[in-house]
């Protein structure tokens, strides 16, 4: 990844961090470390959250009532805090996704036309 792409990732991360986290817990509850690993893996290492930024974000989402955290103790493991999407969080996620898709669609249409014109 070149330097421009990395700088862009930082900017986009700020705007899309909430969306990323909400969509990761959409299907099932996950704990903080799992969330950070998934973000790192699925972005191919482009996006990473450190502890110092991940947990404040989780707490903020919880405070807004979009996530609900619960301590779960699985046999043979130490207890971990699992976050699941609340009904309100589900509505927010849907609307953020819609907005994101429209944004991406808009960007795509612009960039495609530019490419097409240049090609012509």
């Amino acid at each position, binding site marked *: 990844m070149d330097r421009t792409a990395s700088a862009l990732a930082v900017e986009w991360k700020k705007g899309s961090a909430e969306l990323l986290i909400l969509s990761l817990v959409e299907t099932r509850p996950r704990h903080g470390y799992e969330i950070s690993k998934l973000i790192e893996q699925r972005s191919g290492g482009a996006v990473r959250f450190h502890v110092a930024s991940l947990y404040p974000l989780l707490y903020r989402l919880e405070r807004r009532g979009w996530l609900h955290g619960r301590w779960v103790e699985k046999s043979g493991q130490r207890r971990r*805090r699992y976050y699941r999407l609340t009904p309100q969080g589900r509505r927010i996620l849907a609307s953020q996704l819609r907005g994101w898709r429209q944004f991406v669609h808009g960007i795509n249409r612009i960039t495609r036309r530019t490419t097409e014109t240049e090609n012509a």
Partner: protein
Amino acid sequence: MPEWKPEILRRLVPLKLAPAREAEIAEEVAQHLEDRYQELLSSGQTENDSFRTALEELQGEDLLARGIKPVVRNLYSEPIVPGKDGGNFLSSIGQDIRYAFRMLAKSPAFAAIAILTLALGIGANTALFSVVNGVLLNPLPYPHPSQLVALYGKAPGYDQAPVSYPNFLDWQRDTHSFSSIALYHNEDYNFTGTGEAERVSGYMISADFFETLGVKPILGRTFRADDDQVGAAPVAILGGGFWGRRFGSSPDIIGKSINLNGTSYTIVGVIPSSFSFYGHDRDVYTPIGQWNDPSFRDRGIVFSSGMVGRLKAGMTLSQAKADMEGITRNLASAYPEADKGMSAALVSMKEDIVGNVQPFLLVLLVAVGFLLLIACANVANLLLARSMGRSREFAIRAALGASHRRVIRQLLTESILLAGLGGALGLLFAFWGTKAVLGTLPDALPRASEVSLDFRVLLFTLSVSLFAGILFGLAPALKTSRVNLQEILKEGGRGSSGARHRLQGIFVAVEVAMALVLLVGAGLMIRSLAALWRVNPGFNPSHAITFSLSLPASPTTSSAETRARLRAFDDKMLSIPGVEAVSVTLGSRPMQHSSSEAFWIEGRPKPANLNEMNQAMFYLAESGFERAMGITLKRGRFISPQDDEHSPVVIVIDDVFARTYFPHENPIGKRIHLATFNVQAEIVGVAGHVKQWGLGADEKSAIEAQFYYPFMQLPDHIMRLAATGVAVVLRTKGDPAAVTGPVRKAVEEIDPREVIYNVQTMDEVVSNSFAARRFSMILLSVFAALALVLACVGIYGVISYLVGQRTHEIGVRVALGAQRGDILQLVLGHGAKMAFAGVVIGAAAALGLTRLMASQLFGVTAHDPLTFAGVAALLMLVAIAACYIPARRAMRVDPMVALRYE
């Protein structure tokens, strides 16, 4: 494994999080770092490298705290572990309060009953305190009110008599203890000229009246010494209310003229509308020194008037008394004819206004205090009963490390919270209650208009609530906190609770005792009132009304004109259907106003001066007076229409007069000489005695001999006083209220300038004469009824609780062959025992306490055995009835059900 938590906790310190939340975050983040560490290790890194890389996740010293700060502050609170010390004092108080709210919310029925009970107790106390505060505690609304003193003359037969004008002037001149003394005389005027004619209230005052009270005019000036003299130009000061009502508060009123009784007065000042004197404000004030009636300046003739003085700074009332004693002694030797035997009576103005209600209010305050104690005992009992159910909770808390002190504090917080909520509701009750009580009986209390829920009342309510909360909370809290841990946990809640039962029993007995005291108090008042109603007032108040009639007059109106006018008035009244009898009179009417006259009996030695003469009360009457007032004639005849200005003067005396002055002879035909009327009169009849001073008044202290004098035979110098207005008594066939309309109309037909006012039925007059007693009786009865209800609820609660607790025992008894009757006896016996103990204690307390109200009783002693026995029987009966419902429940206990859980 590396220790992550110290690293994390160090970074969280600046946030000052609640300990539990801090631990939670540290645990979660540590878990994250550990996961990362393990991952790095398994990817082949060394322990040191893994540790360092994992720690880099925290990104420096302060990023974590900065990120978390806006999110977590004020969000999480410590989970409550009641009774466990932790955090600072304030946060734990907050914790206690939150927990207390939660506990109350968990048992809403208990909370509702407790709060309502306390609201009744605190509300009644607040209402009464607001009355006491407004009437007794608040200073009079004048500057340096403690310097104000009411002055009276003291003569044989009169403890507090008005003083003649010449004597007033001498007192005023000679005093060394008063900075000023002022005289006032009630005088109403016909106000004419500007718009509709109106009867306005007024005072004739000496020049320094307002200076004495420390009241400044809002416009113009008050009177000067040169206004206050015969022959000075007529001037008047307006009351602020009248100024606003009739003159639209016009600022250029000064210098304008108004017409009072046909004379033009120049307005020189306006007094603030907030001014009130003995509970009243007046429409107009005029200088009394301009009054040129010769009898007014006669030292021997006393007009009804009042005096108020302001003590010099540093002067005490007893110094002033000594000073006045010297002055009156000098006057008595200088004017023996008028002043012999005369002295001064001084009383602080506040006491003069509220003195006779003070004992009533103090008794009521004691009564209402008892009511609060009963309410507290009731709530304490509820708490005790409830604490039984909570003993496991406290045991567990103690096991978790809660200290004894901390548990007590928690329980006290709960009870103070209850009391606070009860107090808030009580304040609402008090607001309505005070309004309702003062609204129904406004005449009973002086300064009633000054009663309000002010800061002091709020402070009182707050302290009473706090006191109540601690009072009813402490005993149960102490009892509860001293639980035997193991026993309770072992027994699963059904612990040994003998001590608690005893405490409940004591509470109930105390409640019953206090209820008995209140019931006895109320009972004695009710019996007094009943005795008062049975007293024959000497006249028949039903279907009788009385009112004042103002007449248009000028200084030149002659006695003949006045007589003619009044005769026309009588005829007009008698022509109204439903009017049976009518008589005009002047001033004196039964229980309303009194006038007295010095006299001597012809053929007996003439006393040397007025003060050595005998005094008798008199009513001026026409022939209709006997029927209109319902006077009973005992001997001879009453005044007839023929007793007019042309015939010899006659009088009718009452039987007290006859007994006192003609003990062994027939008074009819005897002649007496009336001193200030300056006439000889022949006694023609003897009538029954009228209770002039009220039904329950002590008759030995006042003038009791009475006589009736024919109105039309008044000497000219007194008839002049009738020219501007008279009083009227009237008997109706049916409802007196139905006649007032036609009477008003008829008066207007005679002359539109004639006005009737102060219409009262004689029934109202009689009942007003013991309004304060009635006020006291009604309140005491209400308090006693509330006390009875609360005590009943208390007994019922305790007995049904005990029955619930002893279901098992009762089941065993029934299983062993006890009959239902035995069970009933067992339960009722228990209740009766508590009630009986209460009755005995209460009777003993009542014997001591009812002495406080001895002065308010009439026709019944403070230790009236009938009242005591009746109230005790009532209370026992009600207590046993309250036990009956739980007793029936106990009788129905099925041994199978009760023992199933064994």
